[in-house]
């Protein structure tokens, strides 16, 4: 066998369990098997990651050879004959699972991933009932002192997905593997708690963990308590990316638009008002768009970089503190909403602000960290009191017992539930930029935008660029999603080689549709479907530009005055600080 790189254009002929398959030479055995309807079990493998062949669950036999090969770690070659279902293959897979289970706590009933755990599923599929080895999990204390991400490393199966995510996709480097053999573990430098590392709380480690080793700090009990307290006025806002993912938790297809049922469910749970973060997204466009125009006309730091994504904000504070002047002073939509929920809303509704509990449902775990930032209380109250992820909301709904699928669609409450198509696309990479351009164009040119769809900046590409003609004035914009991609743009800005005026950065790959708080099992394909859902929601919304939102217009007329006003600054803007490394 020569040392040649495999050729994607070369079609090879192989057999899998005797079935002939023709596929490119670069096809993994795993994918070739899928082509003939064979699902080889995997544990460390994740379709979006490079991590391969560490768990050894996916081994297959090659005709005539004793050693087994991993289906996820090997490409096919011409004439190869694979057997995926021989007694020795099944035995090897089962033995590998037994070895993992010997170290695993096996407390499935108390585990957050129960019924949704990749290891549990495999153990069930392989009919593992009586353990082969004594069950001797290591005693490792749960780490949750950061208040955002919980690490229960007793449950870790050492697949390496979270490490690749943190190291290579996000380039944050908060966790890595350490030690050898039975001491091998996924850990932080010097075993420090996460808050003493470079962790930005993106939660992407959680998103790819196959078991219950990583999850969000569950705050739903606090919400139950507030809902049960007759003295409290509990309101909720929901981020755009939640509505196209929540349905997945109830058996709907990926990307199904569940907005109406979600609103109905939140009312059933007992929230006094069900509002929409999208309202605040429209406000964000008013403030951030004005900030951009202000900087462009008055020589402020350019490019202006968006600040909606709290994981990204943590990242810039940690790794690029010298670029903080470029970051928009706008609070994120969640925090803008929170500030208005404790000022404008009680004033308008005649409610005592001190009785308001402000809850948000986010696709994100970094939002928990953001809401707890000490400076997020411009009104004198916490902008947002409790943040739940999509997963936590789904669990609350399941606890309540009503059938989500049978709910009749309901509408958000006014006025903080009124929004536009521009706001809903905040949930996907490129959405903030597109929403901003829809408004900025009309403000600058005074002309009606003929086509509000900026197709060129949509999609899952890591870095996207565009140039927009604002009546003769060319504005160059760029969009990055995922922090490794963000570095590309930030390094250019640092080097003075950047011609952009406006940059959108989202911490998570794909933006909020792929957030760390979204339902488990998210892949690129899931994100595509959620994204399609958001663009559909945008198309179906009568108003598609933020500055045309009547509730937003009323907010400025009745309360804020104009964008970047003194009051806006007090409530809707903030400033960021270099963060410890």
């Amino acid at each position: 066998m020569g040392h040649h790189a495999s050729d994607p254009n070369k079609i090879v002929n192989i057999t899998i369990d005797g079935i002939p398959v023709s596929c490119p030479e670069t096809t993994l055995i795993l994918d070739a098997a899928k082509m003939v309807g064979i699902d080889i079990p995997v544990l460390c493998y994740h379709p979006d990651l490079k991590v391969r062949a560490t768990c050894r669950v996916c081994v297959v036999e090659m005709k005539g050879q004793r050693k087994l090969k991993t289906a996820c770690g090997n490409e096919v070659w011409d004439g190869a004959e694979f057997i995926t279902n021989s007694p020795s293959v099944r035995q090897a897979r089962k033995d590998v699972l037994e070895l993992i289970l010997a170290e695993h706590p096996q407390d499935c009933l108390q585990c957050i991933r129960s019924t949704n755990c990749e290891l549990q599923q495999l153990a069930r599929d392989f009919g593992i009932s009586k353990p082969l080895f004594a069950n001797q999990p290591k005693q490792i204390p749960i780490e949750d002192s950061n208040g955002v991400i919980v690490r229960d490393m007793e449950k870790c199966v050492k697949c390496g997905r979270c490490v690749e995510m943190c190291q290579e996709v996000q380039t944050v480097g908060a966790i890595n593997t350490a030690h050898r053999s039975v001491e091998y573990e996924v850990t932080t430098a010097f075993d420090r708690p996460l808050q003493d590392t470079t962790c930005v709380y993106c939660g992407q480690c959680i998103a790819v963990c196959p078991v219950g080793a990583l999850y969000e700090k569950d705050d739903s009990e606090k919400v139950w308590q507030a809902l049960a307290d007759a003295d409290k006025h509990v309101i909720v806002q929901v981020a755009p990316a939640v509505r196209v993912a929540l349905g997945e938790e109830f058996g709907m297809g990926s990307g199904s638009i569940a907005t109406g049922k979600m609103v109905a469910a939140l009312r059933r749970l007992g929230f006094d008002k069900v509002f929409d973060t999208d309202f605040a997204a429209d406000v964000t466009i008013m403030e951030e768009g004005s900030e951009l125009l202000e900087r462009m006309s008055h020589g402020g730091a350019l490019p202006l970089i968006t600040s909606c994504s709290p994981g990204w904000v943590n990242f810039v504070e940690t790794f690029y503190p010298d670029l903080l002047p470029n970051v928009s002073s706008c609070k994120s939509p969640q925090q803008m909403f929170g500030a208005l929920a404790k000022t404008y809303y009680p004033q308008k509704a005649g409610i005592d602000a001190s009785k308001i509990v402000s809850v948000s449902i986010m696709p994100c775990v970094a939002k928990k960290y953001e809401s707890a930032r000490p400076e997020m209380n411009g009104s004198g109250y916490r902008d947002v009191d409790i943040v739940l992820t999509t997963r936590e909301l789904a669990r609350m709904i399941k606890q309540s017992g009503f059938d989500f699928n049978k709910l009749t669609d309901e509408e958000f409450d006014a006025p903080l539930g009124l929004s536009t198509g521009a706001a809903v696309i905040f949930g996907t990479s490129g959405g903030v930029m597109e929403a901003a351009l829809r408004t900025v164009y009309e403000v600058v040119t005074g002309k009606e935008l003929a086509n509000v769809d900026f197709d060129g900046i949509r999609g899952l590409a890591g870095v996207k660029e565009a140039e927009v003609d604002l009546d003769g004035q060319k504005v160059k914009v760029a969009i990055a999603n995922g922090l490794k991609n963000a570095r590309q743009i930030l390094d250019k800005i640092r080097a003075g080689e950047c011609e952009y005026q406006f940059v959108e950065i989202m911490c998570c790959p794909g933006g909020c549709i792929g957030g760390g708080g979204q339902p488990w099992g998210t892949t690129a394909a899931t994100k595509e479907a959620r994204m399609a859902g958001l663009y559909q929601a945008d198309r179906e919304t009568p108003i598609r530009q933020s500055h045309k939102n009547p509730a937003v217009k009323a907010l400025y007329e009745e309360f804020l005055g104009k964008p970047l006003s003194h009051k806006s600054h007090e409530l809707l803007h903030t400033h960021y600080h270099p963060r410890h490394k």
Partner: protein
Amino acid sequence: MSKINKLISSNCGVIRPDSVEDYVKAGGYEGLKKAFTMTPEEIISEVKKAKLLGRGGAAYPAGSKWEQLLAIPEFPKYIVINADEGEPGTFKDKLLLSQDPLRVIEGMTISGHVFSSHDGYIYIRGEYRAIQKVFQSAIDNAVKAGYLGTNIMGTDFEFNIHIMTGAGAYVCGENSALLNSIEGKAGRPRIKPPHLAEVGLFLMPTLVNNVESIANIPTIVLDGGDKYLSYGTKDSGGTKLICLSGNAVNRGVYEIPFGVSLRDAIYDPEMGGGVPNGKKLKFFHLGGQSGPIGAEAQLDTMYCYKALRNAGLSVGSGAIVVMDEDVCVIDYLKGVTEFFIHESCGKCTPCREGNKQIYAILCKLSEGEATKEDMAVLKRMIDTMTNTSFCGLGQSAAVALNTCWKLFKAEFEDHLHKKCPAQVCFTEQERGE
């Protein structure tokens, strides 16, 4: 006639290790001088004729490895020498590194010439701290004398050698783990393909050879591949450094032509000299901790790649650990397994967890607590580790156990009944004596 043939160890103990003057006087650098008159293809042709098989343990044909790297068009190419020798019973590279480092340096320089490389790395295990100093001194002297650095021997060829080391991990002897370690990453094996010849050190094409393999190169170039081949057998060209340890009268490193018998190696007065104190030989462990174990009946096997393989044994690193009748197989295997528990990198499930479970069953056996079911699980774990582990370490960690299982099945079963023929396990009372 002596069964020892000092081809590559002739300078050891004879010359000052770091003295270029001594080395040249002893015939050193003649190979390099000749190499400069030859094309890379001509040199590789000699290596192929010599049928030099990788001396680190994998026994991959060195000539083919070189040919594959030569065919790759990307540059720079790196030369990496694996001097991470580190398992119990293997200390043959130590001899060359400490007593004739210039031979290794000359071999590296010739390979640098073949592949138009400018940089060679030698990864010397951390515990060989003193040797690293000797080796560095040899490098410095070679540079001063014009045999290394720029304009080597008046040519326009430039080649530099860097010493690298790790914190001490057996798995770093695995070539891809070794490259990771040189790059400053954790020493854990990489997934292959891509092969190291294509994507090696710093993602560039790379040659990785063992110390002993590269030390053979000056001789092969100077004398020609055919002559080198003639020292050994038809399929196993040349000589081999073997290291005898354990219950052997004369422990040490010996250079033998392939083709002598195992009995010669262990009993010949010029080599092992037999088992001390009139004890009987019980078994011998070949090629390192990851190698197979053989017994009395296999002593007349010819020491060469083919005959050993046919007998279910292997050359491996060249280690021969002799154990006498006082050694308990189970007790010995516990030691081997402990070694792998310590040295597994932990990346893949079978190796990380399998050694631990095997060790637990061996402990039960030596405590008389094991059951027939444990024996069945032990057998399954041998298969699982061997057939499913990520790299050679895990795949071979159960080789000693597997060979013992076949040779000493009765002794395993004895332990089920609290009997230990070597009288190592259990108290006299437990053994019913």
